[in-house]
């Protein structure tokens, strides 16, 4: 099976600190990946490298067959690589609907149009509303983002990414700061996303990881330690020693 998103030998260092080293991955279509590892393992760095928010010192990134290593972040989004942020990165004074409508309009190439009235774009607004509905936050569509409950804002993070119609969705700790009972709902919403969509999520809660991931990538110290099915990861002695063992203390 050909990969939708792949990396070859990605490396990044800040001064003498190596944050990513020889990262090679191939994510096939429709697979739900969990990216786990202790703090400082380089998980967010990997997402930043993939999405172009950081430039790698070495290595290359491919979306399908196309190399995207030197593309700007917005061009990668246009080609189907979307992400969310660990800390809410939203538009506080826009309503939820306006925010998602903006993302739809950017995707359709209408966001540079200054001579037409926004309400004329009924389809974009309608689609935005549908996306919010599909995540169960349609009730809050007309409220300002900053007035939304925190858990709703986490869902809006995902809604914004979905509005770009991604092939690959990278979720940086989607449930960060969300209480445990709500985080299950959030992952239910994620697991009900379109089955052809490739999803990679960073998550610390092992119950969630083993319940929702079909594959797991373990990172330690800027390297990929191992990649495999949940069963393989659970049995892997190295993972138990290096990661799961330590996590039990932390």
């Amino acid at each position, binding site marked *: 099976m050909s990969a939708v998103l792949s990396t070859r030998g990605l490396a990044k260092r800040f001064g003498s600190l190596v944050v990513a080293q020889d990262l090679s991955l191939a994510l096939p279509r429709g697979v739900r990946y969990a990216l786990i590892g202790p703090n400082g393992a380089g998980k967010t760095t990997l997402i930043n490298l993939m999405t172009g928010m950081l430039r790698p010192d070495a290595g290359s990134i491919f979306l399908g067959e196309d190399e995207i290593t030197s593309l700007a972040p917005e061009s990668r989004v246009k080609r189907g690589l979307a992400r969310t942020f660990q800390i809410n990165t939203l538009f506080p004074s826009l309503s939820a609907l*306006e925010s998602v409508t903006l993302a739809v309009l950017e995707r359709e190439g209408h966001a540079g149009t200054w001579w037409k009235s926004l309400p004329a774009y009924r389809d974009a607004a309608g689609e935005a509303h549908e996306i919010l509905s599909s995540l169960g936050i349609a009730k809050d569509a007309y409220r300002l983002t900053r007035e939304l409950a925190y858990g709703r804002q986490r869902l809006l993070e995902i809604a914004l990414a979905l509005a770009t119609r991604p092939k690959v969705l990278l979720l940086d700790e989607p449930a960060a700061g969300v209480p445990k009972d709500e985080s299950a709902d959030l992952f239910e919403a994620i697991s009900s996303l379109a089955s052809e969509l490739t999803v990679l999520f960073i998550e610390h809660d092992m119950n969630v990881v083993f319940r929702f991931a079909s594959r797991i990538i373990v990172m330690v110290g800027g390297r990929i330690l191992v990649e495999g099915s949940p069963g393989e990861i659970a049995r892997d002695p190295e993972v138990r020693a290096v990661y799961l063992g330590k996590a039990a203390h932390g």
Partner: protein
Amino acid sequence: MHSAVTGPHAHLQAQVRWRRIEIAFWLCTLAPFVAAPAYLQLASQIAITALFALSLDLILGYAGIVSLGHAAFFGLGAYAAGLLSKHAWGEPLSGLLIASAVSAAVGYAMSFIIARFRHLALIMITLGLGLLLHEAANSASWLTGGADGLQGMKIRPLFETFRFDLYGRTAYTYSVVVLFLTFLAARRIIHSPFGLALRGIRENATRMPAIGAPSHAHLRKIYALSAAMAGVAGALLAQTTSTVSLEVLSFQRSADVLVILILGGAGRLYGGIVGAIIYMVARDQFSGISPQFWYFWIGLLLVVVVMFLPNGILGGLAKITARWQRKAP
């Protein structure tokens, strides 16, 4: 926004509809003809300053581009219109359009630098570009007349019919109509998909690339549009007063328009207009009392407004009406 909204379309529609107070405001711009016919020249100056402040609001209030050199485009428009009329192109409307195009072109060229910076760096760069242009105009006295100002402008009557008279009848009518038309354009820009994208940049510049937005291209576009608008204001001043002095490019003018916008309230379309009315009337009154010290009062006004109404006069009013509406029903 708290009223019952029935769908996504209605939600967006509710924000662009004309409010009664807006219509009332624009009807009030006719009042000077009746209420203060002796002050039409001042009213014309206010309309021009309001237009200039509106152009700054587009970049500062909506896209978050702080500028301390916006007079560059005002001055370019003024000199372009002045030079055209001096060299036998005295027809005002086409002069206005050409002047605006000149400002837009220079604005677009500069926008490639502007779009790459934010905050303090932006203040320094806009300030520097403004100073550059001011000194360039000063030293090119063969073209601009330098410190003596541009001499020998000949503006033709508007539509070959209405002369720019001493009382400012034509001047005010011309200025206020151009202000209104430009305002309509600005209002449309703000309520367009592009306007939403600008608010996106202002609200969170980090998120924009992550939803596929070419932020730099957006910023370049609004900077050029704003420059075009500032150019129209400058051209209006040149045409209605038949003079252009170096002052149109001065740092003072850039600073004044920033003060006016902050006073009125940035990011609200009407902030620049309200600010211009208060500022210009205050200057007219205070300078009558003590011509040397009128900036003292402006300084005091600015400190008081920023301390008690951090979002300007309109921001303060919006807060009060919101509180009042919540109590009323």
